[in-house]
């Protein structure tokens, strides 16, 4: 039997699990954060900065 596949313990109630653990246990929320933050702070902000450079006359 695999080490990580032990006999199932009773499922804890969602309220019993701390917020941070629920966050870290959900790869799709982490995916959302990990894509959104650099997209806004690095890409969008950076492109807006470049777009605001006045054109040479």
């Amino acid at each position, binding site marked *: *039997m*695999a*080490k*990580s*596949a*032990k006999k*199932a*313990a009773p499922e804890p109630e969602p309220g019993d699990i701390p917020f*941070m*653990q629920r*966050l*870290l*246990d959900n*790869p*799709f929320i*982490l*995916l959302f*954060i*990990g*894509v959104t*933050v*650099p*997209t806004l*702070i*690095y*890409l969008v*902000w*950076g*492109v807006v*900065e*470049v*777009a605001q*450079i006045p054109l040479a006359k």
Partner: protein
Amino acid sequence: MAIAAVFRTCPDTGLKVHSHAENLIKANAVVAVIFLAVGGFFGLLVALTRWPAVHLLPADAFYLVLTAHGANVLLFWILFFEVAVLYFASAILLNSRLAMPKVAWGSFVLMIIGAVIANVAVLQGESSVMFTSYPPLKAVPHFYLGLILFAVGMLGAVLVFFATLVIAKDEKTYEGSVPLVTFGAITAAIIAVFTLASGAVILIPTWLWSMDLISEVDPIIYKVIWWGFGHSSQQVNVAVQVAIWYAIAAMVLGAKPLSEKVSRAAFLLYIVFLQLASAHHLLVEPGISSNWKVFNTSYAFYLAVLGSMIHGMSIPGAIEAAQRRRGLTQGIFEWLRKAPWDNPAFSGMFLSLILFGFLGGITGVVMGTEQINLIIHNTMYVPGHFHATVVAGTTLAFMAITYLLIPLIFRRELVFKRLAKWQPYLFGIGAAGISLFMMGAGTLGVPRRHWDITFTDAPLTVEMPGTAFLMMGLNGVFAILAAIGGLAYIVVVVGSVFFGKHRDEAVAKANPVIFDGGEAVTQYGSEGTIRIPGTIVLVAIFFTSFVLYYFVNWKYLSEVWPLR
């Protein structure tokens, strides 16, 4: 299909191993090693050309070879191997089947097609645009197409990884939270999604531009978005290599993280902030405000550096705690002195950790400081830094885990064990020398990517100090040493995969390669101690070096750019 037909039970760990996952790990790892061999050979040619006394290649060939070196080692070697690690950390460690094997094989084929097309484009000689391919330098359309196909294939592999997580959770193949190594792989996969999306956003219009279907690509917009791809792809490496450090410490010594929660929080800092370091490539770019530059490279990115420093203490701390648990408690460093230094998986991992932290980590923070960056921007210091992170750090970590993948996944005994024992030292010392001497030359003003540091044909003469020539010569010497170490790795890997003794259950029992059935790597858990005096001494040495080097650079800046 019957379960027995697609799963085997690993004699070392007792884990179920899905045949598709196993075959895909093998296929991706083998192809990765082929690209390492190709890219490493090109890298040696680059170093021998930049060695002033040798100056091997003519200018045209130099830029072609430099482009091929960058693409093959920074993208193809690393990302193929990372796909192997993603499948290992999901299907194998979670005891699950791999999701969508057909998609996984399709992604693998697409990545190979893309990598081959890009290589052909470069070798045809019309695409010597280097790894960054900044417009208005224009490559042939199939160069960009190759990179796009490769990125799409990689995205497919990441999709398979996430789908495998869903299946494992749904089929309850594990209990509670995923193991820390899998969490590190999740971190890498998340960064990979941002990386590949950035690549698609900028490479598709650049491809259209190369076919004259659109009139121009703005060079600064290109730089901003391209570095979201080019630098973040190296942050995927950081996440994977840290996961590998934890994995090897757990598999070889049974070491659990000091605190699983703290290590996960450190990975969370990577997820949120690590990609922002891309901005340090634009620190001298006109037209972009210091607010954007400083926020990305300092305020936000330093939180990712905090994550790295947590890992940098947690991993040696875990090793020390595990060694002390086994009775190696004499003095401060008995645990380190009696560590398995003749096991290439361990020695490669520990060298990778030390070299990445001291050479790559400290210099990365220095480079990411807007003011100090002025001293070394676009000098040899930059490749010096990333050879410390990607070669001494990531590549050495990947080599180290290979010594465990061969017995566990390829089910072969290592051949040339004496050579394997020395290989991490040869490669690690070579890579460290390359990094140090490149950074030394860069500090003296030697430009990066330049065929001729004497600028013979330039209208304005430039005189480099004699020490700069010495540094570039020493870089060449250590590149040869690293190449010998790389060749030793390839000889051991190829020899073991094709000619190693088959590792059946009896051999696995007689010669176990992992500690206690790998329990520490497949389960959630912590050492739960901070009685780690040796690690605290190491951390103190690290911080002292960090602070001294940081302020030496400010002093240097004040000398080259006096304010009166």
